[in-house]
């Protein structure tokens, strides 16, 4: 009996040890590495907004993707990319040399950073020097910059390799950081406690990728929200559930199929804007039959785009005539190709297509209603005699194949425009790593859009779109889905297709 007692005590002691071990884990004050109390009451915020992915870093000099929405409220750029074009921000004005190669910005040195430190050209120089360092992902968009200089505290100059009228928009997308502070705390220190000159300042971050910002009292324009909690919630379903329960206040990219359900909830408001995403088909023109203009034209004519918008987007979108979307500066407003199955069949027959199956690759996310869209496309193509093999890929794998230009046959993609048409031009018409054709006429037309301005540039953009879409049929545009937002009713929130959407406009 005695030995059993000893075992019983040992077992009990072991159980208690396990409980204490777990309790010590549970009681850790480090709370997931939080700089705020992550284990106490939930942080109070005027609004909570979901992030589609956790932030790995809060540093606009090394990050080009994840932090876009957050950077839009924490930092300011040389210019502010408004919906009608760029307006002064950290730069008061800018001038372009006659050859379009030298851009001189006059800085507003009366402005300060959120820590009260002065702003001048040294901050701009430091920021762009970092972005232009080998291995920095910003180099992808800044490769046209030949050199930079800061001749005076209130002047900053870019020397470009080739002229580009959209450079002003590009400069508006690069957040400026305070040089002295950044260098004193280092990259890791800056990411943990970033300082900018934007309308909201950093309050706290939680390991796991969330961040809270509070309105900066010294910002010249009063902000609509006292604070914003950016919470990583990747799942769209969880985002909607969070909205319905009041955990979140704004959810973007609501599925069209959910609109009617959410509209019936009096606590919510649905807002819809023209989207900046376009769904399209691209051709690997290095392979037959996609190398045939007749084949590409036939495919372009094979779709009843209005019916696709009605069924696949529940009417929340428009048929696309090009890849540049409605809210983008330089939107050429091309008519969508008319559905003509007879003409499509004739063109495909003329191309000499032998009826063999062609790969049709698509990403299962990013593209709205990806599987249904792919099936609809396959069905329309089958109707005009084109056999396709659907190849769904996860977005990451698709992106890798896309960038490596190894996608065979055709692919469907949904692509976001930037605020200016040059984003789509750089990515899909000229030079970018996703362009699957080479065409001198297109190169010349692209150059014209970059060396002109005003109405002349608008005409050049329209001519480029007509050349790529209607003459050469390098892409078959399909649909432009609207962006649907659901938000807490009564929230002072005016959405648009571009960031920053939570800050008061400049």
């Amino acid at each position, binding site marked *: 009996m005695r030995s059993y007692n000893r075992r019983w005590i040992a077992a009990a002691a072991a159980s208690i040890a396990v409980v204490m071990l777990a309790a010590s*884990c549970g009681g850790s004050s480090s709370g997931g590495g939080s700089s705020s109390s992550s284990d106490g009451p939930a942080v109070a915020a005027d609004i909570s907004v979901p992030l589609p992915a956790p932030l790995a870093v809060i540093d606009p000099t090394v990050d080009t993707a994840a932090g876009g929405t957050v950077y839009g409220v924490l930092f300011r750029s040389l210019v502010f990319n408004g919906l009608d074009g760029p307006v002064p921000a950290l730069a008061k004005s800018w001038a372009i040399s006659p050859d379009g190669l030298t851009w001189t910005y006059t800085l507003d040195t009366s402005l300060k950073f959120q820590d009260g430190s002065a702003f001048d050209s040294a901050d701009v120089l430091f920021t762009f020097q970092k972005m232009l360092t080998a291995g920095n992902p910003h180099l992808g968009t800044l490769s046209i910059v030949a050199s930079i200089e800061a001749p005076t505290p209130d002047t900053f100059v870019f020397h470009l390799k080739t002229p580009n009228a959209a450079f002003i928009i590009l400069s508006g997308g690069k957040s400026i950081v305070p040089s002295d502070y950044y260098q004193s705390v280092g990259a890791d220190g800056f*990411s943990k406690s970033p300082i900018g000159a934007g309308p909201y300042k950093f309050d706290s971050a939680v390991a796991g990728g969330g961040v809270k910002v509070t309105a900066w009292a010294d910002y010249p324009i009063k902000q609509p929200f006292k604070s914003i909690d950016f919470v990583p919630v990747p799942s769209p379903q969880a985002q909607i559930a969070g909205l319905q329960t009041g955990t979140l206040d704004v959810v973007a990219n609501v599925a069209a199929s959910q609109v009617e359900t959410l509209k019936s909830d009096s606590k919510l408001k649905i807002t819809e804007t023209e989207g900046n995403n376009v769904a399209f088909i691209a051709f690997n023109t290095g392979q037959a039959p996609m190398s045939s203009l007749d084949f590409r034209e036939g495919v372009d004519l094979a779709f009843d785009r209005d019916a696709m918008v009605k069924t696949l987007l529940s009417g929340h979108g428009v048929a696309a005539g090009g890849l540049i979307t409605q809210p983008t500066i330089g939107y050429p407003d091309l008519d969508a190709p008319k559905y003509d199955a007879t003409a499509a069949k004739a063109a495909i027959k003329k191309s000499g297509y032998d009826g063999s199956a062609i790969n049709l690759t698509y990403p299962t996310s990013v593209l709205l209603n990806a599987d249904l869209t792919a099936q609809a496309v396959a069905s329309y193509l089958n109707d005009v005699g084109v056999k396709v093999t659907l190849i769904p890929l996860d977005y990451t794998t698709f992106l890798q194949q896309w960038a490596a230009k190894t996608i065979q046959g055709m692919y469907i993609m949904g692509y976001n425009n930037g605020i200016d048409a040059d984003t789509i031009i750089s990515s899909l018409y000229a030079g970018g790593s996703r362009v699957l054709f080479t065409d001198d006429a297109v190169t010349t037309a692209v150059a014209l859009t970059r060396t002109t301005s005003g109405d002349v540039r608008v005409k050049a953009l329209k001519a480029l779109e007509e050349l790529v879409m209607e003459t050469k049929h390098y892409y078959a545009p399909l649909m432009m889905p609207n962006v649907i937002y659901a938000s807490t009713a009564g929230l002072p929130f005016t959405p648009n297709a571009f960031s920053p959407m939570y800050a008061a406009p400049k």
Partner: protein
Amino acid sequence: MTRYVAIRLAQAALTIYLILTLTFVLARMAGDPTALLLPAETNSEDAAIYRKALGLDKPMFEQYIDYLKGAVHLDFGRSLRGGGPALDFITERLPATLKLAGISLVVSIILALGLGLIIELTNSERLRTFILSGALLREAIPAFVFALMLILLFGVKLQWLPFIGMNGFSSYVMPVATLSSATLALYLRVLRSNFSDERSKEYMRTALAKGESRSYAIIREAFPNVLLPFITVVALNLGFLIVGSVLVETVFSWPGVAYAMVQAVTQRDFPVIQAGVIMIATVFVIVNILADIVSSKLDPRIELS
């Protein structure tokens, strides 16, 4: 004991080396991460410069040697996405995972032992069937489906519990319920089988013959013996907690290691993937060694060899 621990540590080192190698190979097989890190406007020349700056242009064997050298010093490089040390990225998130896994482990043990004892003490076939059926039903539902059901009921419909992130005590309830209930049926079966074995042994008959009540004999005599195999099964199932936390952390946006790992895999962030896998593997190996030692201490019949 010292020799045993030394041998187990050597085995653990070999295991971790193999995991290091496997993680390196699998991560590289997942493809080039530069496409995910660079904007679409990037031309091929700039992409090549970027790849070189990250050291991805080096021969694979050279990358492997560099990786092993770094791993020896617990240096897994810097996150391709965030730029910070990859190991820091993981260790910052480790407390959140340990809290969730630790609490789930304790809850699952308490729940299983409590229900197991109730079934044994009441000796009610109906109660046994009811509890085991419920546990089996839960086991049959995949963890992410069960988590979503909880969210829909307690988060959305009743709005009793939060379901996004780690914010206070109430945010633990649903993730812990999901993780801790998943192994309940297994634990109850183990307890039932062990109690059944112990009941027929001579020491139990002796105890009852000496006038001890059935309840007293079960708790005082049989229960400590039932605990030994139970602890072994619990230790073997610690791996489930880690696998389960990947799903649970993702569904509940829990800021832990598993959630970070899923993001790192999606973004092909090699250093973070490697640091995370090694961290989890090391914890798992150490916990298993500790479980063996605890078992031998509890039961002198178990020899560590």
